[in-house]
């Protein structure tokens, strides 16, 4: 399945294709991130139950140094 991840095409094969599994595949389980799916924020509590669909646009957001 292909999704749009942070503006780039991203191939993703884990099943089931939940957001939690995608995050795990990125190595970010439990890390402090926020996720937007097709323009809507997905609460952390929903990662397990959020099924991704082909062409979903995902933004994974972190805190970085800034002033």
């Amino acid at each position, binding site marked *: 399945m292909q999704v749009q*991840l*942070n*503006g*780039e095409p*991203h191939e993703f094969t884990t099943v089931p294709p939940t957001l939690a599994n995608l995050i795990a595949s*990125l*190595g*970010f389980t439990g*890390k*402090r*991130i*926020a*996720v*937007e799916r097709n323009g809507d*924020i997905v*609460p*952390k509590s929903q990662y397990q139950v959020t099924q991704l669909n082909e062409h979903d646009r995902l*933004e*994974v*957001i*972190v*805190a*970085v*140094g*800034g*002033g």
Partner: protein
Amino acid sequence: MVKDKAAEDRLVIAGREYRSRLLVGTGKYRDYDETRRAVEASGAEIVTVAIRRLDLKAGEHQQLLDILPPDRYTLLPNTAGCYSAEEAVRTLRLARELLDDHTLVKLEVLGDSQTLFPNMPETLKAAETLVKEGFQVMVYCSDDPIQAKMLEDIGCIAIMPLASLIGSGMGILNPWNLRLILDQSKVPVLVDAGVGTASDATLSMELGCAGVLMNTAIAKADNPVLMAEAMKWGVIAGRQAYLAGRMPRRYYDAQPSSPTQGISPLL
């Protein structure tokens, strides 16, 4: 005793008391270790962070938040890089989710990428939305006292006018406008942006500011960790001088510091 009043002096932001009146950013450092050491040396208790896309190509990095233990620092997510109310609101909603329903935020909506001067109409619009959504908004703004008042009336909890352009290090270009804002505001007024060296911080506090927020002045000093400490003392010096009440300026007739009586004439 009067000095004790200074000892109990606290910055209150969103109902929480802070000993330090220096707020620092975390950008532009060489690496996270330097960031950590500089933030520590500054004594800051409130630390700004930016909100960005995870860089997928960068591999397994240390995360900024790992070096900023939440029991030690109050995080202040900002909207740096946002040029519209819409982007800024979206960014802070993400920050709220990211930081587990954290609502204390720094709003900045920029006018253009060359000056990073605030876009005040968009800032006002974003502030309105954010306050309605329950955010506690510390707002970066121009030194326009009328629009500062509008931001306060909207419900922003801190007014943070620029001293000069972000990253310019030019210091306080217009202390008079700051004065107007300080005179009228019932919420804390902090200088945000433009500080270049310790005396700029001292001066800001002497004017009566509740605090100073800075980043580049520390990160881009030759020795950031030492400059961070300089800023700590500079802010304290300025605050104490403000509380102590400076002597009046009087050009002349100058006042001798030594007694004019009892001078033994040449025999």
